[in-house]
C-alpha cells in the first residue's frame, strides 16, 4: 500500500498558495462582481466597473510586491517567477485597458453588466493561470478557460447577429484546435511519460545528451505530439494557417472584447508558447525552427496582404494582428536570451499599441455598421486632433516606424534573428513591414487627407446608410465615444496610457528591456 502523502509533500499550502494569489485576487473579485447581480440596484450602477478596476490594481500591487521571487506551487503545476511577473503585468494592463474602454461601450447596449465585468476578470485570471501553468493539464485547462470566457464575451451582445456568429465560429474553430492540442498532449505524454513541463524538459535534455533511451524511437511520438500541440497553440496565437478565426471573431465581437482577444489572449498564448518552446521544442527533436520560420513568413505575408484591401477597421486590425504574430514569432525563432526578451518586449509593446488603436475605434463606433469602415475616419484629424494624433502614433507603431515602441520591438526581435543568422527570414520580415506600412498609412490618409466630398460629409455628420447590424435599429445613432462633441474620459485615459507607454517604450526602452531580460533569466531558473 502506497502512501501518497509520503511521495508528495502535503505541506504545499504555505508556499504554493503564494504563487496563485494574484490570480486568486482577480477571481475573488470576479465572484464579488458576479454577486452584484443579486442586487438590482448595485448591478445597474458603475459598481462592477470600479470593482473590476480595483481588483486589477490589487493584483498588480501584489505582483509587484512578490516580483523577483520564484515559487513552485502545487507540485509543480504552477510556477510563479519573474517571467510570469512580466506577463502578468502585460495581461493585467490588457484587462485594465479593456475594462476602461468597456465602460462606455457596454453602456450603450442593454446587457447585464456584472456578468460582463466578472467574465473579463475571469478571462484575466485564466490568462494569468495559463502564463504560470507548468503542467500540460494546467495548460490545457487554462487555455480552455481562457477560450471559454472569450467565446462568451464574443457572443455577449445578445440579439446582435454578428456577435453570435462570431462566437459560433470562434467556438467551433477553437474547440477543433483544442482537440488537436489534447491529441498532441497524448503523444507527448506517450513519448516522455510526464505532464509536467520541467520534467518533460529534463527528460528531453537527458535523453538527448546522455542517450539513456533510444531517442530515435520515441522521437516520432514526441514530434507528432509537439506538432499537434503546436497547432493548438498556433491557433491561439493566430498564426497562418491557423488564423482563420481571427478576422471574423475580431470583427463580430464587441470592440472591447476584440481588444481583449487581440492583446490578452495573444500575449498569454505567446507567453506559454515561449515557455514551452524554450523548455521543450528547442532541443533538436526536429527542426521546429524551420516550421516556425515558415509559419512566421506565411503569417506576416498573409496578414499584411489581406489587410491591404480591408476597409473594415476591425478586420484590418485583425489581419494586422496576424502579421504582428508573425513578427513576434521571429523573436522566438531568433531565440536565446536576446530573442526571448525581445519577444516579451514586443508583446508588451503590442498590448499598448493595439489597445490604443481599439480605443480609437470605439470612439468612432456606433450602431451603424458603416462606422467600422475606414471611410468613417475621414477628416477626424481636423475634428479631433488629439485622438487622430494618438491614432497616428499607434498605427505608426504597428507599422514599426521609429520613436514608437513598435519599432523598438521589431528592431529587438529582428536583430535577435539576425544574430542567429536567420537572414532570409528577417529580410522577408523587413520587406513585409515595408509594404505593411501601406495600409496603416491608408488610415492616416483618411484622417488627415480625405477627399473633399468625404470631408464635407464627415464634417456635416452625415451618416451613410446601408447594412445595419440586426436588431440594433432604433438605437441612438451617436458615436459611442463622443458625447456632446466631447470624447469620453475613460477612452481618453486609455489613449493616454497607451500613448505614454508606446512613446516611452520607443524612446527609452531600457527600463522595459531590463525587465524583459530579468524575466527571461528566470525561464531556465528551474
Amino acid at each position, binding site marked *: 500500500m502506497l502512501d501518497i502523502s509520503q511521495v508528495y509533500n502535503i505541506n504545499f499550502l504555505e508556499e504554493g498558495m503564494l504563487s496563485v494569489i494574484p490570480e486568486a485576487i482577480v477571481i475573488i473579485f470576479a465572484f464579488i462582481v458576479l454577486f452584484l447581480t443579486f442586487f438590482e440596484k448595485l448591478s445597474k450602477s458603475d459598481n462592477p466597473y470600479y470593482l473590476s478596476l480595483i481588483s486589477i490594481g490589487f493584483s498588480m500591487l501584489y505582483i509587484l510586491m512578490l516580483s523577483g521571487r520564484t515559487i513552485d506551487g502545487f507540485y509543480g503545476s504552477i510556477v510563479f517567477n519573474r517571467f510570469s511577473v512580466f506577463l502578468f503585468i502585460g495581461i493585467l494592463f490588457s484587462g485594465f485597458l479593456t475594462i476602461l474602454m468597456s465602460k462606455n461601450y457596454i453602456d450603450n447596449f442593454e446587457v*447585464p453588466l456584472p456578468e460582463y465585468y466578472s467574465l473579463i476578470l475571469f478571462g484575466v485570471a485564466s490568462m494569468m493561470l495559463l502564463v504560470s501553468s507548468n503542467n500540460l*493539464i*494546467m495548460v490545457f485547462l487554462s487555455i480552455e478557460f481562457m477560450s*471559454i*470566457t472569450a467565446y462568451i464575451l464574443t457572443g*455577449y451582445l445578445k440579439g446582435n447577429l454578428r456577435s453570435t456568429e462570431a462566437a459560433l465560429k470562434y467556438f467551433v474553430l477553437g474547440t477543433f484546435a483544442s482537440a488537436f492540442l489534447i491529441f498532441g498532449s497524448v503523444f507527448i505524454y506517450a513519448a516522455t511519460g510526464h505532464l509536467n513541463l520541467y520534467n518533460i524538459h529534463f527528460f528531453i535534455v537527458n535523453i538527448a545528451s546522455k542517450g539513456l533511451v533510444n531517442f530515435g524511437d520515441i522521437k516520432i511520438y514526441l514530434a507528432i505530439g509537439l506538432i499537434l500541440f503546436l497547432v493548438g497553440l498556433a491557433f491561439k496565437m493566430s498564426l497562418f494557417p491557423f488564423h482563420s478565426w481571427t478576422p471574423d471573431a475580431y470583427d463580430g465581437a464587441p470592440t472591447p472584447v476584440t481588444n481583449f482577444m487581440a492583446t490578452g489572449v495573444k500575449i498569454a498564448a505567446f507567453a506559454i508558447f515561449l515557455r514551452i518552446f524554450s523548455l521543450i521544442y528547442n532541443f533538436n527533436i526536429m527542426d521546429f525552427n524551420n516550421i516556425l520560420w515558415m509559419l512566421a513568413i506565411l503569417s506576416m505575408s498573409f496578414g499584411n496582404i489581406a489587410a491591404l484591401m480591408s476597409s473594415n477597421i476591425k478586420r484590418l486590425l485583425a489581419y494586422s494582428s496576424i502579421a504582428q504574430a508573425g513578427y513576434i514569432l521571429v523573436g522566438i525563432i531568433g531565440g536565446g536570451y536576446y530573442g526571448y526578451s525581445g519577444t516579451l518586449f514586443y508583446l508588451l509593446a503590442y498590448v499598448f499599441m493595439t489597445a490604443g488603436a481599439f480605443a480609437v475605434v470605439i470612439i468612432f463606433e456606433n450602431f451603424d455598421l458603416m462606422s467600422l469602415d475606414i471611410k468613417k475616419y475621414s477628416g477626424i484629424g481636423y475634428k479631433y486632433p488629439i485622438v487622430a494624433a494618438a491614432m497616428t502614433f499607434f498605427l505608426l507603431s504597428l507599422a514599426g516606424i521609429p520613436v514608437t515602441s513598435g519599432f523598438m520591438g521589431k528592431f529587438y526581435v529582428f536583430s535577435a534573428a539576425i544574430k542567429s543568422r536567420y537572414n532570409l527570414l528577417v529580410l522577408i520580415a523587413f520587406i513585409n513591414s515595408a509594404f505593411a506600412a501601406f495600409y496603416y498609412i491608408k488610415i492616416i490618409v483618411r484622417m488627415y487627407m480625405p477627399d473633399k466630398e468625404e470631408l464635407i460629409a464627415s464634417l456635416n455628420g452625415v451618416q451613410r446608410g446601408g447594412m445595419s447590424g440586426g436588431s440594433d435599429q432604433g438605437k441612438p445613432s451617436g458615436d459611442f465615444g463622443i458625447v456632446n462633441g466631447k470624447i469620453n474620459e475613460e477612452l481618453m485615459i486609455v489613449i493616454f496610457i497607451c500613448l505614454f507607454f508606446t512613446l516611452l517604450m520607443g524612446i527609452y526602452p531600457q527600463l522595459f528591456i531590463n525587465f524583459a531580460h530579468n524575466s527571461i533569466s528566470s525561464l531556465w531558473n528551474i
Partner: protein
Amino acid sequence: MEALFYVFSIIAVFSALMVISMKNPLTSALYLVLCFFALAGFYVLLDMQFLAAMQILVYAGAIMVLVVLIIMLLNLSKIKKIKMDLHQVFIAMVIFIILLVEITIYILNGSLKKPTGIYTHALINKIGNTQILGEFLFTKYIFPFEVASVFLLVAIIGAYLFAKKKY
C-alpha cells in the same frame, strides 16, 4: 482480452462513422452514445473502471441528454433539412485520408517510452483505481481541480447568458 478489444474497436469506429454520416442528428446522437459505451469498454480493459463509469455518466448521461434535449428543443424537422455538400464532402474525405494515413504511419513507426511507472496492473487492482485517481486528484492535481470548478462556473454563466431569451 484481445477479442474484446477488437469488438470494442469495431463498435467504436463503426458508431463514430455513423455519427458523422447520419442525416438525422438524433440518430447521430444515439450512435454517439454507443460509441461512448465502446470507449467505456476500453477503459475497463485498461483497468480504469472509474473512468468508464465517468464516461457513461458524464458523456452518455449528461452531455448526450443535453444534446438530445437541444435537438428536440430546436425544430427537429428543420434541422434534418441541412444537406451535405458533395463537393465539400469530397475535399473533406481527401483531407481525412491524408491525415489518417499520416497519423497511422507515425503511430506504427514510433514507439513509446519504456514503462517506468509503479502503477502496474497488479498495483492498481490492489489499491483500487478510484482510490488512486482520488489521491492524485486531491494532492498532485488539486490546483487544476480547483480551477476546473471555477471553469465550470464560468461555463454555467456562459450557457445561461447564451440560452436566455432576453437580458
